[in-house]
């Protein structure tokens, strides 16, 4: 087991299997909130289900609607349980904040450096604490 310290964008406690995305993902147009699956035909991991997982992704893409899709997935229980990103993406963070304000649904959003990537990519599961410590195993 190893640990990483991440920067907290939206705080919360979560744990789940890690899914490392090889390319940026737009939650709108790229993710189906009804099923939790990636549906972006241009994404190398199209078809992978993200429900209940700690999603590790370098960045978001453009669409503003990603906030709505994240909140809707939170309502349905089909979304990730945490997002660990390299580049800050306020559109994703806004979805997590509104999911909390509307439903009390906690979806931590954290930032890590590129240097932490190999450790995350090599781990199976992650547990995230309120202060942004990520335990890997």
């Amino acid at each position, binding site marked *: 087991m190893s640990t990483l310290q991440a920067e907290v964008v939206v705080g919360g406690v979560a744990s789940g299997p890690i899914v490392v995305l090889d390319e940026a993902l737009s939650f709108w147009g790229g993710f189906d909130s009804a099923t939790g699956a990636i549906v972006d035909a241009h994404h190398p991991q199209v078809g992978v289900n993200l429900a209940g997982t700690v999603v590790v992704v370098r960045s978001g893409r453009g669409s503003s609607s990603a906030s709505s899709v994240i909140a809707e997935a939170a309502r349905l229980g089909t979304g990730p349980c945490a997002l660990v990103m390299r580049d800050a993406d*306020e559109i994703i963070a806004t979805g997590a904040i509104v999911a909390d304000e509307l439903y009390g649904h906690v979806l931590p959003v954290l930032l890590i450096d590129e240097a932490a990537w190999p450790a995350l990519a090599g781990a199976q599961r992650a547990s995230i604490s309120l202060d942004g410590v990520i335990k890997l195993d």
Partner: protein
Amino acid sequence: MALTLNDADQALLRGELGDGVAFAMRVVTRVAQAMGARDLLDIVGAHIDSCLYHGPSGLDFVRRLAQGGAQVQVPTTLNVSSLDLLHPELYRGDATFAAEARELMQGYESLGCEPTWTCAPYQRMDRPAFGDHVAWAESNAIVFANSVLGARTHRYGDFIDICAALTGRAPAAGLHLDEERRGTVVCELHGVRDALLDSDVLAPVLGYVVGAEAGSQVPVIVGMPPAQPEHRLKALGAAAASSGGVGMFHMVHSTPEAPDLATALHGGKAHRSVVIDIDRLNQARRELSTGVGQPLGAVCLGTPHYSIDEFEILVNLIGGRAAHRDVAVYVNTSRAIWNEVSLRGWARVLTEARVQPVTDTCSYITPVMAPFEGTAMTDSAKWAHYAPGNIGVTVHFASIESCVESAVAGHTVIVDDERWFPQ
């Protein structure tokens, strides 16, 4: 780094303008903290993407905001919705979904937003001035406001857009700040034929490459002819905000904060420079086209919503002919632009040409297209990027000239493809 709220902000948080505005202010402050802002700033306008229906959470949210009679504090426009209210007969989706989508639209109107229903709010007379702070959502509108108008908005998503409008406040962070608008990735175009540089088809493809290269950084595009028209800058920005998270680009000699490269870089050095050659552009064209070689079933234009200039190009290219019976042709635009198209007499010309207008929404976000065999051709990189995932079609990306000739012929016709050959 703590966020400081002024007395007026704190009054809103306490609920002096009602529970809905207090809720909105709480969202604004939490997003500001997530962005690392120290203060909030006043905005002069907002554009709302939250009116597009994605499920019951959207209704839960707007009902929460409406508590206590909340009204927007600044002029606020609304993005595309899930429904075409002017052509309701086109809708082929679920009736319950449509009813909920309509309720969401009415919810945003009840907050005092203007029912503009367009992703291109900048194609109107009253658009923000250079230096104005606004809170715009809708990725293509954000990139246009920052890059082409020189107005200032961060990349806002759904929810924060309307919360900023109801409070008149936005985080003093991100693309609102001078230093965040500095170009950091130089994208230099090389080895492209003049015929391609002079055509409308280059901008969306170049934008798609620039977005992939820049991610969420601010790219500076070098090597394009000066004073590019707005419809090309629109297509480029929309594509860059689809393949990447671009919220602003500079194009040297075309955008207002880039009279030259050094100014776009704020006198500093770029983090990275990339050369974009004809091979890279052709690779992007192939990525965008998942349906090459399939029979032609439809042609979809107007993503983002077509402008008057684009309608003029379309009407001239059609030249009094009509689309073939086997190919359905759609063009998305706003009700305001469609009204002007009608006043110019072009609506009749387009109807006779069997071109179906779609207003208030877009042909890739809601089921308005009749079922067809084969592939859909488009001149929009944004439509080509999203349509396969959203509505399950294959796409052939092509120039507007090829789109029109193919629609008329009833099968794929590629015009001037030698533009894409090496120089």
